[in-house]
């Protein structure tokens, strides 16, 4: 299943991000970022489904929150950064 990972600067930021998305009806799951995309070492991500990315970004923008980076899963399990 294809999904997006919103990389957050901190666990608390990820928790805030997930809380905002959940309140907007977007299912969001916090996880530790895969090492392959965690460029500075440990970080946390918010996982959302592929079809909710656009809506999620609109919701986050309204509350002035921005993910550090966004990654999309590829069919082979690798990650590709999404440039907006």
């Amino acid at each position: 299943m294809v999904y997006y990972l919103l990389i957050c600067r901190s666990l608390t930021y990820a928790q805030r991000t997930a809380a905002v998305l959940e309140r907007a009806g977007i299912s969001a799951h916090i996880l530790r970022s895969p090492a392959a995309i965690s460029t500075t070492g440990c970080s946390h991500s918010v996982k959302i489904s592929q079809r909710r990315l656009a809506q999620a970004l609109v919701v986050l923008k309204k509350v002035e929150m921005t993910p550090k980076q966004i990654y999309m899963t590829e069919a082979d399990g690798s990650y590709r950064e999404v440039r907006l």
Partner: protein
Amino acid sequence: MIYLDSAATSLQKPPEVARAMAQAVSRYASPGRGGYSASAAAAECAFRCRTELAGLLGAAGPEQIIFTSSATHGLNIAIRSLVSSGDQVVISGYEHNAVTRTLESIPNLEVRVAATKLFSQEADLEAFRSQIDRQTKAVICTHVSNVFGYILPIGEIATLCRERGVPLIVDASQSAGVLPVKTEEWKAAYVAMPGHKGLYGPQGTGILACGKESNPTPLLTGGTGSESRMQQMPSYLPDSQEAGTHNMPGIAGLHAGVQFVRRIGTERILAHERQLIRTLAEQLNMLPDVKLYLPGNRAVQSGVLSFRIEGRDCETVSEQLGQRGIALRAGLHCAPLAHQLAGTSETGTIRASVSAFSRQMDVMALAAALRNKMEI
């Protein structure tokens, strides 16, 4: 025991505090350090606690809430982030040693004390107005005196600081959970407090609420579970200030305590504490040798009352009351400046302080014991 030392720590806690702590010991791992459920549960608890605190303290959001080990810890972060050697700061005449000793440890610091007369909000505000100048690097002010329960005009002092462009550090040790704390409305740089007094959490917990624009310097460095490849501390809150493993039982207990405060409401707690102090003051006023240290205006008094008994040593009286099961605090209360202002530096005072759990019968028992003081 009749416990009247809540200004030191609130011994009586809501039962859910101990329950939450016990649960944390067996169920919570380190927050954010793993993807498993015990780590996620701890992270969720910490986040809920931060969110609850941000609401209670009027902070911009949960990231502005730093968990510390005490108010002293938070004040150290705040002061050392804003003040350096050679600077000038202005403090109130009621500051605790948590502030004054920290300032004393910074070399070549000019410390101006905005103090004139006891229990006058107008005089205090005027003193701050005259002491703050262009060289002032920070104003540090307690919200409520831990010795006298006197409420300082923090809203007005905050406005003055904003007008003069001087960062404000508030010591809310005696006010958090009792009076409204308005971190963002005051535009305070930092508001520090313990978790174990009016917030009914356990000892070993504290909070530093940071203003939206504040970027504190780390006091401790170490692992944060974030940016681990980097050898510098993360630059963002709360990670920049929370090196090491979190005190999860403490945070869980604090969360339960803060929920209790929000459920009851600070207004009701303050009204209850004021009523008890009023009763105690009325009772003690009837005793000929007792001198009370109370503001004339009751609206600037919280749940703390200091008094002396003429011709009696404060520590000895307190010790003897302790032997009768009445817990009070005597001496200088780690606040020598406040005692200088009251003229009690040599004698100290006896301090009775109440909480949401104190009862009318507690203060009546103290009054009765003092009425029979000749037997003490």
